[in-house]
């Protein structure tokens, strides 16, 4: 168990915001990490960790050099590291992307197509198809994301595939009604998500996507409230979600919900520059009713 109290400054309003114990959720999240570990072998040695550390702080060229230097190591993680850093080694070229794809295609099958390593590789392949190729291969990317979600990986990073699917669907068609239909088809994905982060991001993405396409506001609200119940780490994301819920509630005449979320914002962020305006809005809401 890893205690998060000191490094989670957002806890005060998170814990007052929702009835469920968000803190417990985070403990659960970190308890899940060992359960979804990449391999049962011993942890990475210091030598093998260094390139990963470099990659985690944007020193991609240094990281890639480190992975190449460790290339004689039998660890397939090393190859994964090579592929991942090739995606961002400078300068970024189509040859680097192609080389990364080749490694990832191999890793997605070897040593095992069902391993976490394989899933991570498939995830990166989907990302390449979505974001690195010109023109992007969105159909292939979507298929991979769907496959990863349905695998029920239990890894928050991989469960982001669900919210990525939503992002790709939001403006896929010219007609909002078609987009809404496509988004509705993605609703069942929630059943495959087991981590709070994955679930939260999915609901947030769905809520905002339906909103962008002027869909059912109550459906939007239900998604956004689900995301809120799980909670966010960053203050700006908390604020954004609360204010969208409040504003939308106000627009559809749900005065109670609007008041609840406006008040929550004011109570938790009394010194935010937006607070005065929100207080003003709340006062009008209380006086006049919803718009």
């Amino acid at each position, binding site marked *: 168990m*890893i205690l*998060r109290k*000191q*490094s989670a*400054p957002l806890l005060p309003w998170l814990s007052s915001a929702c009835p469920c114990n968000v803190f417990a959720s985070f403990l659960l*999240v*970190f308890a899940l*990490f*060992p359960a979804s*570990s*990449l391999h049962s072998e011993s*942890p*990475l040695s210091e030598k093998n*960790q260094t390139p*990963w550390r470099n*990659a*985690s*702080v*944007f*020193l*991609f060229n240094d*990281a890639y050099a480190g992975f190449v230097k460790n290339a004689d190591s039998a660890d397939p993680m090393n190859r994964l*590291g090579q592929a*991942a850093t090739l*995606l*961002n080694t400078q300068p970024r070229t189509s040859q680097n992307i192609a080389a990364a794809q080749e490694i990832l295609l191999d890793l997605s099958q070897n040593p095992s197509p069902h391993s976490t390593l394989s899933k991570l590789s498939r995830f*990166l392949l989907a990302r390449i198809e979505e*974001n*690195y190729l010109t023109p992007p291969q969105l159909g292939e990317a979507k298929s991979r994301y769907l496959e990863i979600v349905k695998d029920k990986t239990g*890894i*928050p*990073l991989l469960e*982001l595939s669900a*919210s990525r699917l939503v*992002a790709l669907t939001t*403006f896929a068609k010219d007609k909002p009604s078609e987009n809404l239909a496509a988004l509705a088809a993605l609703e069942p994905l929630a059943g495959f998500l087991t981590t709070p*982060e994955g679930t939260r*991001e999915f609901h*947030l*993405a769905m809520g905002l996507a339906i*909103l*962008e396409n002027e869909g059912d506001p109550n459906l939007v609200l239900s998604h956004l409230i689900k995301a809120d119940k799980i909670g966010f*780490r*960053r*203050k700006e994301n908390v604020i954004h979600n609360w*204010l*969208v819920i*409040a*504003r*939308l509630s*106000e627009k559809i005449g749900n005065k109670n919900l609007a008041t609840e979320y406006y008040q929550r914002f004011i109570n938790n962020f009394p*010194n*935010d*520059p937006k*607070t*005065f*305006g*929100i207080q*003003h*809005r709340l006062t009008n809401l209380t006086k006049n009713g919803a718009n």
Partner: protein
Amino acid sequence: MEQTNNSRIWNLIGLGLVIIFFLVAAIPMVWKSFTQSLPTDSKEITIRFAHWQLEGGVRRAFDLAAAEYTKLHPNIRVEQLAIPDKIYVNWLITQLIGGTAPDIVQMGKGMSDERTTRYFLPTSALSTKPNPYNKGTTLENTPLRETFIDDMESVFSTTLLDHYGVPLSAFTLRMYYNLDLLQEITGSTELPATYGQFATLLKQTTEFSQKTKKRLYHIAASGDNAPSLIDKVFRSQTGKLGDGLAYDFLPSTRPPAAHLGMAFANGEWDFNEPSMRAAVTLLRHLGSHLQPGFMQVSRDDAMFNFIQGNALMMPGGSWDYSSISAQADFPVGVGMIPTPLPDEDSRWPFSEGIISDESTNASVVMAVTKESRHSEIAQDFLLFLCSLATNEMWAQESGWLPAVRSAKIGSESQSFMPNLNGFTGGFSPGFSGADTKRVVQTSIGLAVNPNGSVDKFTNHLNSEFRNALASDLERNAIAAKINSQRADTVSLALYVLSQNGDASAADKLAIQLEGMSATDRGYQLGLQAIKLLK
């Protein structure tokens, strides 16, 4: 022969002088480089810190802080390097790459994510513990992060997921008044509190100039300070514009550029929108009182005019106060930049109310370089600088606002305290980036010049804005895509490290996951906006 000998002697003298001057210049430089690179075994340690704040009060404040630190630690000497801001970026990058950077530098100019992570030590680890220099104060047990007015949000990199440096100050924008002139013009030194009173003052100033035949600027504006004035004017009138947009989901906040772009593309707003026209009308009124050609005047020229007593007022930042009060030989008043209040004047039906100071973000960020040979001492000095007592002393000495909560300020700085009792307002046309800013700034004359008009400005913007907006959104989308791409590698690395028991990597990953989705959403939104605009 004699002439040849003479010319030889003169040549030798000339050569000798060149050699002497060369040695005089070269020897100290070489000696300095040499001694700096020597391992130090002397008991005295020197910490160097560099910044670009050349304002006199600030340098004095830093000197005082350094002296106080030396009193506590007699074997540590702190040396200040004030580098002009025009060359700061080049100087800093050269020093960082050359391995000769000072122990502490001011961040904010020329810093990319790669440079930040390569050359600077993060302060996240420090931010969770109380500042030892706050012992005996109300902040004794408060984690460092929470001692700042913005909880160190201004120094948190959302891409690197770490805090870099500590902030020391905060800035606000105000209108400076020449109180002697004000007294002459109005018979009183009371500053205008409403836009109506402000407009009356401008009228009185015109009459005063005509009566006394004195060449007087009403407002000493410049290309540096006018944009913030223009921004405030637009924000004061467009606050309710967002309410009517299909994409308004965020009351009292700034709609994202992509949303505004989509709304513009869909014809939901343009510059003929009544609130926009009201903003331009207000701009025209205000602009007619700015000095002609103000966009081509520099900040120093405008300040020169104000200090010389050629202007009644000047918009400026709290950072200007110490320079102005030191150089002006008249008393200086400080007031909010006035914007119309609702019900004050029927010409401004779109005004929501007082426009507040936009943010409470702190600034003047100082960070320790990785190259520092005494990084622990340098970090300790940083903690000392941002302690309650020192930040308070620093703020009072410099005349700037403090970044630490509960720090007391001098009475003259009270006028600069952020005013949060107001609306954040709407948006200004240059909201999306360099090209929309360029279009607006190069068109301002159409609004404010004597031969300009509201129609000329709005028609021009309606025709030029679309392409500029599309260009900015494309650039923003590319930046979002690059961030998204980099996040792929970073998040995987964090995941791998977290699986190996790295708690801090797990923590960062949790934050990263929120950011990744937001970036993806923003990217798709941007693409959609560009598609609609083109």
